[in-house]
């Protein structure tokens, strides 16, 4: 029973987590910042995407479905765990369900790489998810990683076009002992 709870939790984490960036700042972003420094505010995609990741994490930890949904393009695609979700409306529903299943779940995101070109970027990173499954007394943590493609909109904010996530540990097999 406990095993199946863990399994469920892993699946829901995977379905939930595919996330976002922040990072070391791509070289091109740094170049662009230098070129534009004289006339316009410096553009640093790495810093902007670190901020994006921080906002994703904050929204997630607050259970803020609208805040999370706003970080996705209308036609964004996420895949995580065993699900593929297309469009920000469906992504919103996925977050609603995930928070219902794991109230109070917390995530910590770490960005390991940003590479950017103009208004587009890729971000890689890792996450640690912590939640207390229903019926369990202790919180449980899982780690995983993500990769995504992002677009800077006209207003300067970034949205995910595609993001994908998976767990570092295999899902428990049905019928496993323990």
């Amino acid at each position, binding site marked *: 029973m406990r095993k199946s709870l863990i399994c469920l939790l892993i699946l829901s984490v995977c379905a939930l987590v595919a996330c976002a960036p922040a990072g070391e700042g791509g070289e091109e972003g740094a170049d662009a910042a230098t070129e534009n420094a004289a006339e316009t505010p410096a553009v640093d995609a790495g810093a902007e995407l670190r901020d994006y990741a921080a906002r994703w994490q904050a929204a997630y930890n607050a259970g803020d479905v609208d805040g999370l949904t706003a970080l996705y393009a209308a036609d964004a695609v996420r895949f*995580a*765990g065993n699900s593929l979700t297309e469009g920000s409306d469906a992504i919103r529903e996925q977050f609603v369900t995930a928070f219902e299943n794991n109230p109070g779940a917390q995530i910590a995101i770490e960005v390991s790489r940003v590479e950017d070109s103009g208004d587009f970027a*890729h971000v890689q990173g890792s996450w640690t998810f912590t939640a207390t499954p229903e019926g369990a007394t202790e919180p449980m943590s899982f780690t995983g990683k993500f990769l995504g493609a992002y677009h800077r909109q006209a207003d300067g904010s970034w949205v995910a076009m595609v993001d994908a996530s*998976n767990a570092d540990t*295999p899902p428990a097999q049905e019928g496993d002992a323990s």
Partner: protein
Amino acid sequence: MSLPRVGRRVVLGVLLSSLLAPVTLAAQDGEAAVRAVVDSIVAALNAGDAAGIVAHYASDASILPPGEPAVGLEAYKAELEQHLADNTSVFETEILDVGVHGDIAHVRASYHHSLTTSDGEETHEMGNWLITFRNVEGDWKISGEIWAPAPAAM
């Protein structure tokens, strides 16, 4: 050199279109190039050719397989060699989305992987795949990839 009138028009048209089209052409070329990389990887996987797969990755690429931590290229190559020695793969993909933006690009695809072990055991896995690319001196190299199995449609 004096071209006939029609010939001159053709030359002018070609010149004009080459002036107007570079941005579009670059994106089209990029799309064709990253699709070719995916095709090449799939062919190499089905041929059991680990080196042919790894050749398409940037040296600092990060590979994010499901169920295990992220690995660098050297570790991934060792895993691939072991995997390809132990199993026969039939790997099929359908590319669902290609985005080429300046020096970076991404491809999203679905895959179907049929695996036969040396013991003759056969497994099937379907899933989703995201690959990111960076243009390195004219070549599109894989900078990162992640995939995740999805249950087969019932």
